């Protein structure tokens, strides 16, 4: 329930669909996605953009949805983990995370995959140091980092083979 109706945000484009919402402009994008749109694959981890569990794409760029005010999104395209599957086919990164077993509790996994998808858009064949630098803001407390790096490399390789 918005405190100030003038600042209310009523629409959001998520995973290619225009969705009706009702939120204060300064509400976090994360809480709108999770609580109003039931897109709970983006997770709360720290509330200060330090752990990456809430990562989504906004117009293709990785953004921490916990510190993104929904009022700043406007007409931009928001992509969440739920929007990666295309026609029942897993995104190459989703498949690679499964193939490599790049998870334990997997609470960080959606944020990892979203960050990595942004990386592969801008750099289809990243080196290990490039992966490490780009992914440094995403925390896996279970410590599966090496597997995540391997999964990103495998997805990059599969992408290349598919082109």
């Amino acid at each position, binding site marked *: 329930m918005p405190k100030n109706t003038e600042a209310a945000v009523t629409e959001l484009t998520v995973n290619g669909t225009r969705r009706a919402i009702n939120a204060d402009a300064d509400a976090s994008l994360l809480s709108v996605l999770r609580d109003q749109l039931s897109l709970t694959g983006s997770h709360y981890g720290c509330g200060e953009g330090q752990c990456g569990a809430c990562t989504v794409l906004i117009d293709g760029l990785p953004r921490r949805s916990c510190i993104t005010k929904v009022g700043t999104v406007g007409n931009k395209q928001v992509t969440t983990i739920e929007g990666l599957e295309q026609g029942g086919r897993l995104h190459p990164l989703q498949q690679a995370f499964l193939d490599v077993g790049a998870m334990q509790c997997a*609470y960080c996994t959606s944020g990892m995959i979203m960050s990595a998808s942004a990386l592969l858009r801008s750099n289809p064949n990243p080196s290990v140091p490039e*992966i490490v630098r780009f992914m440094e803001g995403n925390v896996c407390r279970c410590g599966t980092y090496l*597997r995540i790096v391997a999964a990103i490399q495998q997805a990059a390789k599969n992408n290349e083979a598919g082109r």
Partner: protein
Amino acid sequence: MSPETLNPVNHVDLEPERYELRSPSSYHFELGRREFFRILGGGIVVACVWKDASAFQQSRGESGARRGSGFDERLPQEISAWLHIGESGEVTVYTGKVEVGQNARTALTQAVAEELRVAPRDIRMVMGDTDLTPFDMGTFGSRTTPTMNPQLRRASAAALDVLMGLAADAWKADRSKLTASDGKIADPATARTLSYGELAKGKQLAQAIPAEDPLTPAPRWTVMGNSLPKVDGIEFVTGRHRYPSDINLPGMLHGKVLRPPSFGAALGSLDTHEAEAMPGVTLVHDGDFVGVAAPSVEIASRAVAAIRAEWKPGGPQPSSRELFDYLRKNPDQAAGQGGFGGRSDHQVGSMEKGLADAHQRLQQTYTVAYIAHTPLEPRAAVAQWENGKLTVWTGTQRPFGVRGELMEAFRLPQGQVRVEMPDTGSGYGGKHTGDAAVEAARLAKAAGKPVKLVWTREEEFTWAYFRPAGVIDVAGGARSDGTITAWEFHNYNSGGSGISTPYDVANQHIQFHPTQSPLRQGSYRALAATANHFARECFMDELAQAVKMDPLEFRLRNLKDERLKAVFQAAAQKFGWSESKPAAGHGFGIGGGLEKGGYVATCAEVAVDRASGRVQTVRVVTAFDCGAVVNPDHLRNQIEGANVMGIGGALFEAIEFENGRILNGRFSQYRVPRFSDVPQIEVVLLDRKDQPSAGAGESPIMGLAPAVGNAIFAATGVRLRSLPMAPNGLKAATSG
């Protein structure tokens, strides 16, 4: 009688440093046989009874059953697990164990698939639901693999036995000639088959079996011993899995609790008018508890911010700066327990004689800081009251313990509380208590609607509990030939796990000293074994240095335990301990030990940048033996992850506090290992198919800190004896 029945999980001795646990209540499952079949439909149920199964059989007066016995009106008490084969062949397994990322769901699925001869995809695990699963004390202490795994296998073997009997009866065939695979019984003589579903159809067979029936030996495993991928992995990579904090119920409100500004502060005056006037806000003030339920997280936060509260600070409290002095000076007489079967003290031989026999004598003090578990999913709960019955979904390693907390808080009988535990966003020993569950339930009760409460990261850092800090004094002596003659070891506060030395020393005095703790503290992955191994294995290096021996050679010389020797040798060989030499500014270190049935040795290479003081762990090799390996890839994953987590506690994680406040309770202030901190990690598995499988979620962490500390010494000549060793780099560690 097998070790499991002598020391079943529900009666396991609790280590003294599990400070957060109260004495567990002994609850009994009350679901009757008829009710069971009414809920599940017909079929075959097999329950595994861990306690004195022979007495159980006698009391039931059963004689006809080939295994165990049937049961009539009520299921027997002391059941650890059961499984149900439904009329369409689906297998549902019920266990009180929970999944927190250690991949127990997958490993237990393998156990059932192995003995029941059914594909893993046809098995559904119901875990940690207090209304559906048998009582379990909790998922901790690396007990799932050594206890629940064999119990589920026994139940599965018994169920297969029932199915074989049914098929033999149906065909009037010799049951010893029948075979089973992929959910079907076959008669090779006639090529007839019957699926498990066909056999279970129209039946209501219930059987209880004792916990010590024979199992398929590891060399003949076909499902166990293989790297089955995480059984529901697709749910996680698609974001479909609902963690406790993801659960949304119709009409659900969001909760927020007013926290005191410091530990020990007491509520003085309270003005809640403004918060209560907010639309949709329910305010609860009940004793010390003040909180709100509101239609959104934002409104709940605004409402709590609008509460005007005056707090009376508690008395002066020690800060992290004087922590170790405080621990030494404040023994906890009341605790007075633990370590050695209820005693805190272990002595053999004479320290005086041992030191007199030594050519080199040393004495050192090591310290470990409080650290936070920081599970990426903070504590969270959704609570719902319906017709006086409370249901709570929450992330906990002890769903039955949380049920007990809720029963106590709301004075409810057992049947009126249900706790469900969806696979949760990790725990590492940090989710043993039900704080968020009790808070959410209190708010939901007042609001008359379901309430979700997710702790903020700051709340998680402040109001959860920490790994105990500790001071460890070690003294010892060795002869010039490398024989250790004396070993004295005193641990203040951090705990008794891993406190014994695995080395063969004639004169020993080892003691755990409980103390008062400035902060709330409790279990953490491997408990105090990490602290005790750090002190012991670093001191071993110091002794080796004193007698001018290679650290590996010195260890092997004093070891009799063949399995521990084997992991030290395997790690050293893979690492190239003897053959290769570190580059300039680099150093090699080694450390290891055994705990909870796991034997670990870790070699580490560190690089120290002299200019910046930055310490980087470059390479780690861990050799591990936990008996017969159940799932090699998931075991490797645990060992890799334990090493990464271990780097945090070894090098930079520490909770800072002052006068009842946490000073660095955010991810931006408390550094956890990230991508750039991770070394190359190699894992050597010693798969001992002749040994029972032990748990592996904890003990692989123990070797990392001493290996890194010893490697820093090798690289620089600087001996660091406090965990974390280099929170701000090596310069700060050595100058301050």
